């Protein structure tokens, strides 16, 4: 009985669910693109200075430890409600995951390989792009996967500051005690995270 109603709900409101899913994806994709750009620049800077690398990791780890709901709330007086605020917070969150993996990956190369490369007259940029990057691509990609999955999850909470997405269905359901909304919100959010994780894990094995 419940199952039939659940499907009926989806048949009655496909546009509502679809819109929420697309919105959610939009938030995640925009966040990921900007996050990757920012994290790449910060990693590049961190490769030049061990001190800066430690400071960056420390700062973002402190921010990362703040509960997401609190961080969304803190940002409201500064940036107001809505998608832009949500994406900003999500970007800051994902920096910790990306930077940690990027820096650890690039610095995790066997020292003898770096010594040989330096000794034969490769400059820092050549070592970075021809040696460190290709040898750490798996670790770097793991960072991207983890950041994307965690962004999908945290983006659900972004609905609390009117960012839209699958969280809207969930929060609506909670407010009106509509079980179907709650279940659909959960299924889609969890399904998206699990699906993306599975696809990216497969790619990770190939590269």
């Amino acid at each position: 009985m419940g199952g039939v109603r659940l499907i009926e709900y989806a048949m009655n409101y496909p546009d509502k669910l679809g819109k929420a899913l697309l919105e959610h994806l939009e938030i995640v994709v925009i966040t990921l693109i900007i996050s990757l750009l920012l994290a790449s620049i910060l990693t590049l800077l961190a490769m030049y200075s061990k001190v800066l690398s430690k400071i960056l990791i420390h700062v973002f780890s402190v921010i990362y430890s703040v509960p997401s709901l609190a961080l969304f709330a803190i940002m409201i007086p500064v940036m107001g409600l809505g998608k832009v605020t949500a994406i900003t917070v999500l970007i800051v969150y994902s920096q910790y995951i990306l930077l940690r993996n990027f820096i650890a990956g690039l610095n995790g190369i066997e020292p003898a390989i770096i010594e040989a490369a330096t000794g034969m007259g490769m400059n820092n940029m050549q070592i970075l792009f021809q040696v460190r990057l290709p040898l750490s691509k798996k670790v770097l990609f793991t960072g991207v996967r983890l950041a994307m999955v965690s962004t999908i999850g945290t983006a659900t909470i972004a609905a609390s500051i009117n960012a839209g997405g699958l969280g809207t269905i969930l929060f609506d359901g909670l407010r009106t005690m509509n079980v179907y909304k709650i279940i659909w919100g959960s299924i889609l959010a969890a399904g998206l995270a699990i699906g993306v994780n599975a696809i990216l894990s497969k790619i990770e094995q190939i590269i």
Partner: protein
Amino acid sequence: MTHTAIEFSNVSKKFNNAGYNAVDHVSLTIEEGEFITILGSSGCGKTTLLKMINRLYEPSGGTITLFGEDIISVDVVKLRRRIGYVIQQVGLFPHMTIAENVATVPKLLKWSKEKIDARVEELLYLVGLEPKEFNKRYPSELSGGQQQRIGLARALAIDPKIMLLDEPFGAIDAISRMNLQEELLRIHGGLKKTFLFVTHDINEAFKLGTRVIIMNQGKICQFDTPRNIVKNPADDFTSSLITASRNQERFWEGLD
């Protein structure tokens, strides 16, 4: 007429937080074409001495010149490309094939593909590996001895006048090691390059070196031909090295 290839004038190196000089006021002159071995126990400063030549370490004092030119005045990347560098752990790039490894620096210098291919083939023959068999393999598919041969080929790629070798055969089994020593002598003989070879094995040092630098606690104890060192050891440390080696010989004779 000989040219001075490498000259150290009063060179010292003190690492941060160390209370002593790893290399302590060293002066020496090496002529072009010599095969110099640097012998000493671990921590004596022999690797530090070597790594100051390609500026992996910067001296704390003194000057080093290569063919009369102070190395501090040369762009560090350019300096390193003039010097071949081989280390014990080899450090081949695991994501590149053997051919790509050997071609690393020629590629950075944007040589044409034909020139690179020809050079790689020539180098693989030089180090005793069949190009057709090894070109497309990856470093992990090679034995330790074969990997070090590639390390040698890679360091020789753009024909550096000076080769620095930091215990290159230290992790290689006795038989391969003997072969590699012979090949290294052959390569040195054919190329007229200046070789600096760090080792803690006295047999290796005396077998390979036209002259041997004996180091202890950052200082040079003696720098002479193997024959002269054995005839007239300069100090107690040098004599004890020779005595230890002789005792080992006696041990072998006892087994016969």
